[in-house]
């Protein structure tokens, strides 16, 4: 329960940071997604329960700031949390590798889904331009963000679940 309660201010703070700070640092047209990386870092820790709640909270809070349809964040964050959970169960010995792998995969999934939904909504969008100018730089920025976020949330998980050893 404490993990769910602590998730509310953390995800809200992450969404605010994403909108006010992280969005200002772009590479080509790509930008990092702090909330996505936080969800992955939290989910792949073996001690963590209810990671999907954090994904849902992240989707709700980011949607407050974004003009992108709410569904994009719900689906992409939920999917990424599920992938992170599955990967962690299969390859639990190398959490850092999972962190980087899921960040790469999760960013691509989120951005491809964004492009698909935007195209369905009638936004003129070149898939190739979006992938090369937005998605690939975003992947790089998320991978750079992944390592410090992983360290921070591993420490936080140790504080929230002090008695549990990582599975």
């Amino acid at each position, binding site marked *: 329960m404490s993990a769910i309660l602590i998730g509310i201010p953390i995800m809200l703070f992450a*969404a*605010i940071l*994403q*909108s*006010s700070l*992280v*969005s*200002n640092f*772009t590479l*080509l*047209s*790509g*930008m990092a*997604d702090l*909330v996505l990386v936080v969800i992955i870092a939290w989910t792949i820790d073996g001690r963590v329960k209810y990671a999907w709640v954090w994904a849902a909270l992240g989707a709700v809070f*980011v949607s407050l*700031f*974004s*003009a*992108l349809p709410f569904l994009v964040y719900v689906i992409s964050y939920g999917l990424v949390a599920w992938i992170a959970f599955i990967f962690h169960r299969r390859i639990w010995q190398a959490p850092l590798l999972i962190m980087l792998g899921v960040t790469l995969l999760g960013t691509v999934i989120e*951005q491809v889904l*964004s*492009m698909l939904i*935007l195209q369905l909504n*009638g*936004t*003129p*969008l*070149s898939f190739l*331009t*979006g992938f090369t*100018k*937005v998605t690939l730089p*975003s992947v790089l920025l998320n991978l750079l963000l992944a390592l410090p976020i992983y360290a921070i949330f591993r420490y936080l998980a140790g504080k929230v679940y002090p008695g549990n050893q990582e599975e």
Partner: protein
Amino acid sequence: MKPVNSRVLTIVAIVLVIGGILFLALAGYLRPAVGVATEPFIAVQRWITTRIIALNDFINFPRDVTNLSQQNAELQQQVSQLESQIVELQQQLSQAEVLYALLDFARARPENQYIASAVIGRDPSPFLHYIIIDHGSDDGLQHGMPVVTEQGLVGIVDAVTARAARVQLINDPDSVVNVYLQSSQVLAQISGSVTSEINLLMVPQNAKVPINELVLTSGLGGGFPANIVIGKVTSIHKLETDLFQTAIVQPVVDLTNISAVLVITNFKPVDITPLIPSTTP
């Protein structure tokens, strides 16, 4: 004759000797002798004084270091406070400069009513180009109100809450603005893109579009007031096989670094959607 008492003689002799010594001392005749006599005492006194001062220094010096360290820490704190004050004042100055520029712009166009707002955030999605401003419906903002700076057009209010609003920038992929080219008076449209590039579209093939041609809002469609500066044409793409020319427009407003904007509150956008004929049979 009564013999003089020997004791009296002794006293007289002592008085005379003392008086003589005093006389000699006052007259300065004893100075060398006094110097020689006091030299050992002075040496002893100097030795003792030196040791006392050393002992005093030994006892008090660490306390002085502590005091100096405290003073140093206090001064360093003051310096950091002053430095942060300088940074704060510089920020306020730059903010004030922006606001003065906006105020000048607003005064130059008295026909419009403005609300100045600070930019407090951006859209988290890299595919969309929106900003979030710190005024909302409580301040009279409504969907569709144009947003400008002293340099030119920024975008349009897209969504409003009580205390904040989301503004769609002119470089957003979904943004379309009807424009005209200043010298040639050619009507066209601008549209944004995911890469923040602004494209000039629908320019007739026979129109001559010079580089650095100024692009302004035409007011057609009712979405924006007329004659707001948007940018300059930087490059033109003309293919004989295409129906229209296209061009790239460099916006006059640096859309990636906006800190404050003006919302035109007395402009009522016209929704012409019902007037557009449906393409479906």
